[in-house]
């Protein structure tokens, strides 16, 4: 039996207050009528209106979403392949280098990743724009995807795949019919992680983009450098709302999936 203690209650209250109050303030002040962000002058939604009419922000948002969808989708395919190789392919020459290249981007400072990719793109004469950002984002987020997917692959029973092969499945069919449904939650959360990482990235995108493509974080960063502005607060509020809804939905879906899986396993164990 755990004792309720004042210490724990205080730690939780203060901790979550610290984590959430700055964001709550940000949201509240996005509805401020005053241009001065720190002075409250009554409720207003005018900054949302200005945001919707601001072509530059809309264009940047569109570029960001395009980049995020493309890079996270390619990264999910490549990252799942890489995870499969790491967990299932056994030994092959260059395996150490391979796993090193999967883990290194996770700890590599963004400034270095950005600089090195930019120098590559210039070296091979590739025009910088949406394509180069997609290539850059795919490269680092596939590593995150492969870590998420391989942790799921490690825990599941290899004999299920072997049974499918014994029963006449081709390796690809075994993957599609047995492995993929089992690792699907990890693949989906890998895609979501890659998507958010891409949506969020300022440093690597700044290095690898050209004049033709400005992403939302680049736009926000250059606006924010000049100081706090209510339009950015409105934009942040929209982004926070989307993320919150997304995370809550994702957790409900995984919870349902877990319940269903537990039920299926119980059914499978019951003697016929």
């Amino acid at each position, binding site marked *: 039996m755990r004792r309720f203690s004042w210490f724990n209650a205080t730690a939780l209250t203060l901790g979550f207050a610290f984590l959430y109050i700055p964001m709550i303030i940000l949201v509240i002040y996005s509805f401020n009528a005053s241009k001065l962000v*720190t002075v409250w002058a009554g409720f207003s939604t005018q900054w949302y209106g200005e945001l919707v009419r601001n072509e530059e922000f809309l264009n940047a948002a569109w570029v960001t979403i395009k980049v995020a969808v493309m890079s996270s989708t390619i990264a999910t395919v490549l990252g799942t392949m890489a995870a499969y190789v790491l967990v299932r392919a056994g030994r092959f020459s260059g395996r150490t280098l*391979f796993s090193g*290249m999967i883990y290194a981007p996770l700890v590599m400072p963004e*400034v*270095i990743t950005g600089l090195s990719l930019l120098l590559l793109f210039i070296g091979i004469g590739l025009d910088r724009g949406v394509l180069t950002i997609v290539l850059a984002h795919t490269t680092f987020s596939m590593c995150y995807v492969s870590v998420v997917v391989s942790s799921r692959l490690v825990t599941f029973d290899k004999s299920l795949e072997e049974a499918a092969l014994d029963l006449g499945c081709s390796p*690809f069919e075994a993957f599609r019919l047995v492995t993929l449904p089992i690792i699907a939650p990890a693949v989906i959360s890998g895609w979501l992680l890659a998507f958010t990482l891409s949506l969020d990235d300022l440093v690597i995108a700044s290095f690898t983009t050209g004049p033709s493509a400005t992403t939302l974080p680049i736009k926000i960063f250059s606006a924010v*450098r000049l100081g706090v502005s209510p339009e950015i607060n409105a934009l*942040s509020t929209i982004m926070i709302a989307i993320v919150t809804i997304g*995370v809550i939905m994702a957790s409900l879906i995984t919870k349902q999936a877990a319940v269903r899986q537990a039920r299926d396993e119980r059914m499978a164990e019951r003697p016929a």
Partner: protein
Amino acid sequence: MRRFVLIAVPYLWLIALFLIPFVIVLKISLSDVALARPPYFPQLDLSQGWEGLTSFFAELDFENFWFLTTDDLYWKAYLSSLQIALTSTVMTLIVGYPIAYAMARAAPEWRPTLLMLVILPFWTSFLIRVYAWMGILSNEGLLNQFLLWLGVINEPLTILNTNTAVYIGIVYTYLPFMILPIYSALERMDDSLLEAAEDLGCSRLSAFWLVTIPLSKNGIIAGCFLVFIPTIGEFVIPSLLGGSGTLMIGKVLWEEFFSNRDWPVASAVAVILLLILVIPIILFQRNEQKQREAEG
């Protein structure tokens, strides 16, 4: 054949877009600045065959690294990044441990919700979370308004654009990375160990020091590395919350590249930064591996 394709596709992708770019950085860090496009020298000219290759290598030198040691901006920036990263890691641990502890002690039906509340900010844009503090910490910001109203201070404190703001920003944004590993270590802890310690005459506080802390050691180490390693190369926090006095190497690299357009020096800064990071990264990997072996 299928296995070959499966391995080759991600492998070649990583070689082309991770390894080769890095070799290019290394090469440019050994080159000289030139008033041309691209702005460095020498260029590898394969059309001249073997002679082109030897003359290319002959032109490479360590001049940029030598330059980094002569201008004290650079080593001061490295040292101050390390110091800021170290201090803020300790601060994050002090803030994060009680939260992780309280979460692990909470009723089991509450824990998934608490966990989600810690993870949620992590999914929210990093830039936005840093930006949120700009409005709070500025001279006419909410913190100063609040403190003035309380009567604690008579004139606004200057916090934004100082190192204090950088510390606050780092603790705030990296807190989930500290809480999660400590929480997962504490959650697995067997409560009867604490009861045994108390039965054997330990006070609650000494039971905490002698039982709880050692058992959460791996979580603490993992959390500290997860905060320390990315903080060293941090760019967004020092450039938005820090001032002109805040020296961090990520910011120096950025300015060297975008403002001074000195690619060779920016590359040399990157190479040294990576060499500094190798030690904590290897220590972190060792710790993770030891933990896996202990569990396996």
